[in-house]
C-alpha cells in the first residue's frame, strides 16, 4: 500500500535580498530572485525522505500563484517530487489566507485520496502561518504545526512527531490522514539532481483555474470573497539617523558613548 503525500509550496521573492533605496525610501526589487519558500523546502524534503525509505510513495506538490510559479514547481520535481499542480487564475488574485486555503483545499480534494499533507509553517513574504491550518480545517484534518521531528510506523498510519514550543517541545501521536507544517529544524533540504532536472523538464504541470477547481470567485476565492481587505499600505517611516562617534582610540569612543548614554538617562 503506497503512501500518497501532498506537499504545499509557494514561490516567494527572496525578502532577504530586498533593500530600501536610501534616498527615495522605496523598495528596490530589481534583481530580487523568486525562490521556493524555505519552510516549504523542509516540507518537501520530509516527504522525499519517506520516499527514500518507501520508494512506491507518490508525492504531489500543490501551489497557488502566477504562471511563473511553474519554475518553482519544476525545482520541486527536480528534487524528486513525482507530480506538480498549479492553481493559477486572475480570479484567485488578491486572496487572503481564508480564500487561499479554499483554493488549495479544492485542488487537494480534486487530486483524490491522500495520506499526508506537508506544508511549510509560513511563507517569508506574508509570515502569517495561517494557510496550513486553514487548509486542514477545510479538509477536516487533524494538524500539528511547527514540526521538528517526524517518524512513521511500519503500518504507514501511525505517526509520532515533535512539535516545537518557545521553551521546549511536545511529543504528539497522530494518525493519517493529517496535516503537518514543517520548520527548518526538521531537516536539511536536498539539492536538485542533474537527472532530476532533466526529468522535471519533460513533465507536464497542469494549471487549474477557478473553474477547474470548482470554486466560486464571488464567494470562495479572490479579493472580493476574502474576509480581510487592505485598508492602507505604506512604507514604515525611517528612524532618523543618529550620531556617529569617533575618537583617537577605542577607549575614547567608549567613553563618549557612556557619557552620551548617561546624559540621556539611559543608564
Amino acid at each position, binding site marked *: 500500500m503506497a503512501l500518497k503525500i501532498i506537499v504545499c509550496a509557494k514561490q516567494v521573492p527572496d525578502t532577504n535580498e530586498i533593500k*530600501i533605496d536610501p534616498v527615495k525610501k522605496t523598495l528596490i526589487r530589481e534583481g530580487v530572485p523568486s525562490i521556493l519558500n524555505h519552510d516549504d523546502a523542509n516540507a518537501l524534503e520530509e516527504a522525499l525522505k519517506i520516499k527514500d525509505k518507501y520508494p512506491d510513495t507518490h508525492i504531489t506538490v500543490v501551489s497557488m500563484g502566477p504562471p511563473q510559479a511553474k519554475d518553482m514547481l519544476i525545482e520541486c520535481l527536480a528534487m524528486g517530487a513525482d507530480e506538480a499542480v498549479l492553481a493559477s487564475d486572475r480570479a484567485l488574485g488578491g486572496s487572503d489566507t481564508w480564500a487561499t486555503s479554499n483554493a488549495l483545499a479544492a485542488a487537494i480534494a480534486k487530486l483524490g485520496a491522500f495520506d499526508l499533507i506537508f506544508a511549510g509553517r509560513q511563507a517569508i513574504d506574508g509570515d502569517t502561518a495561517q494557510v496550513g491550518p486553514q487548509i486542514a480545517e477545510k479538509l477536516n484534518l487533524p494538524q500539528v504545526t511547527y514540526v521538528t521531528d517526524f517518524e512513521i510506523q511500519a503500518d504507514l498510519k501511525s505517526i509520532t512527531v515533535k512539535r516545537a514550543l518557545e521553551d521546549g517541545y511536545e511529543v504528539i501521536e497522530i494518525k493519517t490522514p493529517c496535516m503537518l507544517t514543517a520548520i527548518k529544524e526538521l531537516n536539511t533540504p536536498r539539492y536538485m539532481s542533474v537527472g532530476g532536472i532533466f526529468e522535471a523538464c519533460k513533465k507536464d504541470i497542469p494549471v487549474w483555474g477557478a473553474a477547474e477547481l470548482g470554486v466560486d470567485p464571488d464567494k470562495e476565492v479572490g479579493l472580493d470573497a476574502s474576509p480581510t481587505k487592505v485598508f*492602507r499600505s505604506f512604507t514604515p517611516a525611517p528612524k532618523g539617523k543618529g550620531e556617529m562617534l569617533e575618537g583617537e582610540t577605542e577607549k575614547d569612543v567608549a*567613553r563618549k558613548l557612556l557619557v552620551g548614554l548617561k546624559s540621556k538617562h539611559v543608564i
Partner: protein
Amino acid sequence: MAIYVIEDKCKGCKLCIKACPFEAIDMADKLAVINEKCTSCKQCIAVCPFDAIGNDEKEVEKADLSAYKDVWVYAEQRAGAIMNVALELIGEGRRLAREIGPDTKVWAVLIGDKIEGLAQECFDYGADGVYILEDALLGKFTTDGYTKVFSDLITERKPEIVLFGATHIGRDLAPRVAARLNTGLTADCTRLDIKVSSYIDYAEKYTTQDTSDLDAASDDKGLKQTRPAFGGNLMATIITPNTRPQMATVRPGVMTRREKAEGAKGELVKADPQIAASDIRVNVKDIVKSAKELVSLTDADIICSGGRGLGSPEGFGLIKEFADKTGGVVGSSRAAVDAGWIDHAHQVGQTGTTVKPKLYFACGISGAIQHLAGMQSSDMIVAINKDPDAPIFEVADYGIVGDLYKVIPEIVAEWDNAEALFEATIDRSAE
C-alpha cells in the same frame, strides 16, 4: 476585478511598476497592465500622477454585525501559568473596548483543566470579565479540542473582536478558529486602532502616509490592524469589514501590560464546553521543557546582540561578557542563528522575537530589514560595525565604526565609570 488600469488616462510612465512591491504590473502596448500577482495593496494608486489606476472592490452587501459585542482575549495558559502576552493583550483589549464605547467590555477566555484560579490574575491586569472553559479533556492544548470549545463559545456569545498572542500555540489555534467561523484573521499585528482619529494620530506620528483622505470624525468602529508585510519592507493596515468577529494575533512584547491592580473585581462566567474524547484526534504524549536557559528578550531592559560580524561562535563569549556587565541579555541576528553560532531562542527580528528594550546594542549586525523590524522601536540603539555603510547605522542613535573586539572590551572596562565620566563633562562645561 479590484485594481485596474484606466487605459485612456495611462501615459505609460511606469511609475506604478517601480512602486509595486509584488511585480504585479507589466507593460503591454505602452500601457500598464495589472497581472495576477496583485494583492490590491494600492501602492500604485498612490503614485500614479494621472489618476489612471482605479479600484473597483465590490461593495458586499452589509451583513448585520450589530449582534456582535465586546473584545475577547485568549488568555493562553501553559501548565497553569498565564503567558505574558495574554496579560499584555488584556491591557490592549481594554484600551480598544473603551475606544468602541463605554459599554464595551474586555473578556479574558481561559481554556484548560482546573484553571479557575487564574481568573483573578486576568482581573488584576484589566479584564472586565472572564470566561472559564474547563474540562479534563482540555488539560493539555490540542488544536482539535481548543478549536471546538472556543469556536462554540464565540458562536454562542458573539464577540466583536478576538485577540490571540502570536505564540506557537496561538498561531496554531487562531487560524483554525477563524476558518471554522469563516471570518478574517490578521497575523502578527504591531498596532491596533478602532477610531479613525486614533489611526490618523498613529499614521502621522510614525508613518510617511498621507492621511488627508481619512475622516477623523468618521463613526467607523472597525478594527484597523497594522502589521509588517513583505518581510517588514512594507506595512499594511488590514480590516475585516463584513464578517465577525474580527480576529488578530499580536506578537509577545509588542503591547504593554497595565499596572497590576491587585484584587480587582470582575464578572466570572463558567461556560459548559461540549467536548468528547472522540473530538480530539491527536495524543499529546509528552511536554518537554528544554533544559536550555530561557531567554527573556521581551522583558529585558538592555539587549546585547551579536551578528555575523562576530566572525565565529566564540564571539558570543564576548557578547555574554558584555551582557553580564550591563545587566542585559544576549540577542542575535538571524545570520548568527543560521550559522549555528547560537540558539534560535536568542534571535531578534521578523522571524525571531520582537523587542523594545531601553537600550539595544547591535554588535556586528548589518541590519537586514527583518532584523530592523524586530528591534527598531527600542528606546535607544547603539550600533558597532566595521562597515560604515551598514544599514544598521540608519536606525542607530549612536554609531561606532570599528572593530567590535576592540570597542566592546573598552565599553565593558569603562562601564562602571560612566557616572564619573559624565560628571567630568558637566564640570568642564561649567568652567
